[in-house]
């Protein structure tokens, strides 16, 4: 038990340090201000629409959370490990009685905490705006926000994974490519089913299951349109994100463990 608390203590210390470091980053505030401005801007946009104002505000709000959250996840995520190597602070850290996996886990949790704070600020802004517009509280939006946050956790894990073995520029490129591919994977499967023959179909099928499938975490339509959402699907989608994040973190830990910092 004391061993566990010691491990937890080290991970928490790194996480909090990462969080405070991110909070001091000016880019974070710039992104947050842009997101809140986009939320406020949606109220101007709806004045030129005919009907559907509530839907447009909610759609744009959820899209802002997703877009700006992804920017934070990618641009802070790719620097998590590489910045420590670049500044050579990683030598000080690994020379201390701390496991490398604890370092990776702490870094990840620190950025996830940063994202959580940002997403909460944006979500409160959106729910407040929807309340001002409709006069009723749209707490159901929190469901869509929760799954957007899970998507951001997945993107952060991807960025961290790549940052353990490549430069920040390459990590950003790989993460963006997988982000795009993860949104296209259902279409890849559809394409292979329609046109694929021989090896293409099983290869596309394999890729479909291997690539992160972000559409599994998208419940925005159901929430905004007031459609029913199956509890089983929600639970499985949650489990899917957790398994995928765990796999990426374990791979990142394994790679970082083998890295030679001499």
């Amino acid at each position, binding site marked *: 038990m004391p061993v566990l608390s010691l491990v937890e203590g080290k991970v928490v210390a790194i996480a909090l340090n990462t969080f405070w470091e991110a909070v001091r980053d000016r880019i974070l505030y710039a992104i947050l201000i842009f997101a809140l401005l986009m939320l406020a801007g949606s109220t101007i*946009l709806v004045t030129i629409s005919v009907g559907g104002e509530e839907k447009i505000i909610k759609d744009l709000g959820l899209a802002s959370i997703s877009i700006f959250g992804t920017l934070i996840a990618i641009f802070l995520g790719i620097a998590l490990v590489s910045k420590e190597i670049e500044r050579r602070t990683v030598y000080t850290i690994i020379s201390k009685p701390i496991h490398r996996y604890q370092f990776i886990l702490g870094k990840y949790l620190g950025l996830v905490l940063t994202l959580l704070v940002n997403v909460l600020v944006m979500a409160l802004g959106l729910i407040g705006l929807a309340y001002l517009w409709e006069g009723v509280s749209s707490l159901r939006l929190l469901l869509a926000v929760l799954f957007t946050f899970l998507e951001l956790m997945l993107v952060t894990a991807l960025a961290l994974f790549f940052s353990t073995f490549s430069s920040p520029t390459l990590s950003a490129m790989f993460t963006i490519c997988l982000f795009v591919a993860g949104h296209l994977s259902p279409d890849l499967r559809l394409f292979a089913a329609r046109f694929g023959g021989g090896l293409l179909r099983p290869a596309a099928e394999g890729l479909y299951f291997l690539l992160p499938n972000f559409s599994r975490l998208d419940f925005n*339509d159901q929430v905004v349109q007031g459609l029913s959402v199956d509890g089983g699907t929600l639970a499985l989608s949650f489990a899917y994100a957790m398994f995928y994040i765990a796999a990426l973190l374990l791979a990142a830990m394994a790679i970082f463990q083998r890295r030679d910092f001499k």
Partner: protein
Amino acid sequence: MKRGGLAIAGLLIVSLLGSILVAALLEGRAAQAKRGDEWLFLPDARHLRPILLGFHGVAADLLWIRTVQYVGTHVETDKRFPQLARALDITTSLDPHFLEPYRFGGLYLLYLARQPQTAVSLLEKGAAANPDRWELPHDLGRYYYLEARDDARALGWWERAAKLPGRPNYLPRFVARLYARTGQAQTALELWLDLYRTAQDDSLRSLALQEIERLKVAHGSRLTVDRPERLLR
């Protein structure tokens, strides 16, 4: 140094003025371009959807706002809407549950573009994609009743709408009246009786009673349901 600074400031002003002048010239050219070509280069929704990376709902919202602007512009100018049907089709394919493009789009197609068949197809597409919403069968019923003067079809759609949650209170009344008009007095009577029993306010109850009386006068001998006045007691 001071001279250099002044030169840079002068060049900056010239560049800014130049960009504004060229933008104004381009604006003039764009205004001369043929109206109605705005949507020509937009791909079909099935090709557009994948590249939107999950933001198809927002894209549908923005397209809808753009469609409203398109209608507004052409109402004020040539009153021709060659790309309206395509714009509405893309918007509703990107977000099949977004009701406004079906409802208002249907009205634009019907009354502004004078394309009733396309309006009906759009509303039918919406009714198929949203089987639990009363609004689209309601609008289809209204079209058949008011425009096509096809009571049987209007009845079919209103009957469907009347069974859905959230429907307006007047729909069962419309259905009952249409049953009477299409010669189905027996069904009409039963519907009016049901409405009488379930009505929440006196005005609706007295309306139901009045219609029952009228049916009695017109078809009394042919009605097989027990005498309405006894049922109502």
